[in-house]
């Protein structure tokens, strides 16, 4: 199944995505926002992809982001969801910097939220973002996420401690903003 957004499609990750993904996660401008600390080899990245379980409620869901004309520009995911609490964390990266600040991140988040609420039947979707990633925070607010808190000095990077912002959106809020099921 392919998830269709306005500007993009979300699809399963394939082996052909590896080299681009590897370049993105080793780009310091990107890893600084992701919190990935240690350099990761292409071989390690390939091992991880091969060992990934299929996307599922308790397995997590890892998706590639393609533009409508088929260009691979990033990835997005749910961490393994908790079945009792119907709650999952999400993450997103637009790795191709030519697509920053053009609405692709927002569209990818909204597409993933729709999948999480309307197909997986989640009640709550949360995320963590570093305090200095203002562009991402603005994007998540636009998607309906609310700031729930600030974990003081929760992250150490580039020689100093930073706060981690916790944001979340509930099913009712998503439905109120986007009109609920069809």
């Amino acid at each position, binding site marked *: 199944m392919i998830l269709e957004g306005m500007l993009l499609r979300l699809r399963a990750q394939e082996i052909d995505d590896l080299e681009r993904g590897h370049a993105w996660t080793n780009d310091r401008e990107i890893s600084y926002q992701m919190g990935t*600390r240690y350099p990761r080899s292409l071989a390690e990245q390939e091992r991880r992809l091969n060992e990934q379980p299929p996307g599922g409620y308790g397995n997590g869901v890892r998706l590639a982001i393609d533009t409508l004309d088929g260009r691979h520009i990033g990835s997005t995911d749910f961490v393994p969801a908790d079945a*009792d*609490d*119907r*709650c999952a964390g999400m993450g997103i990266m637009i790795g191709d910097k030519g697509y920053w600040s053009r609405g692709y991140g927002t569209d990818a988040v909204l597409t993933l939220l729709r999948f999480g609420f309307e197909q997986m039947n989640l*009640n*709550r979707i*949360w995320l963590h973002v570093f305090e200095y990633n203002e562009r991402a925070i603005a994007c998540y607010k636009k998607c309906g996420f*609310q700031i*729930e*808190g*600030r*974990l*003081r*000095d*929760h*992250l*150490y990077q580039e020689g100093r*401690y930073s706060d981690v912002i*916790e944001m*979340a959106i*509930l099913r009712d809020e998503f439905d109120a903003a986007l009109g609920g099921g069809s």
Partner: protein
Amino acid sequence: MLEGQLVRLRAVEPGDRERAQAWLSDPEVTYYLTMRYPLAEKDPIWLADPQPGGFANGVHLAIETKDGQHVGAINLHELNPEDRKAGLGVIIGEKAHWSNGYGGDAITTLLRFAFHEMNLHRVWLSVLDGHDGAVRCYEKCGFVRESHRRQHVFKHGRYWDVLIMGILRDDFDAMHGGGS
């Protein structure tokens, strides 16, 4: 052995199992805990499964009164050496010892160890919104509310909010004095 004012923290021992199992089978004790499914005797629990303490495995300690009664357990989990942070969990299983300052003393004793021996920078915990006695105890120990996760846990027929509280080394030293 870590000495507090009212309690002593020691390594957990296999002999703690029976009491721990009884505590975690008591609905009154687990009411605000996030554990959900009945526990089998073979299930691993940190309250009674000895592991070497440290950054890799966490620090899991039994709480004893000064006269040697085992009343609960406390731990540091998810330790991260780069961020120098850890999560804290505590349970007073002997209900006769609730609301008598044992939990708070155990926490302060473990925080001192975390900040002054392990060189941590931050300790955090999560607590169900509504567990007011615990929140007051954590606040008295110097934790501040940092995050309010809405509808984060389902229990007793409804969603509950979860509070994340944190304390930094500087906060602790301001309350208790720095290292000697």
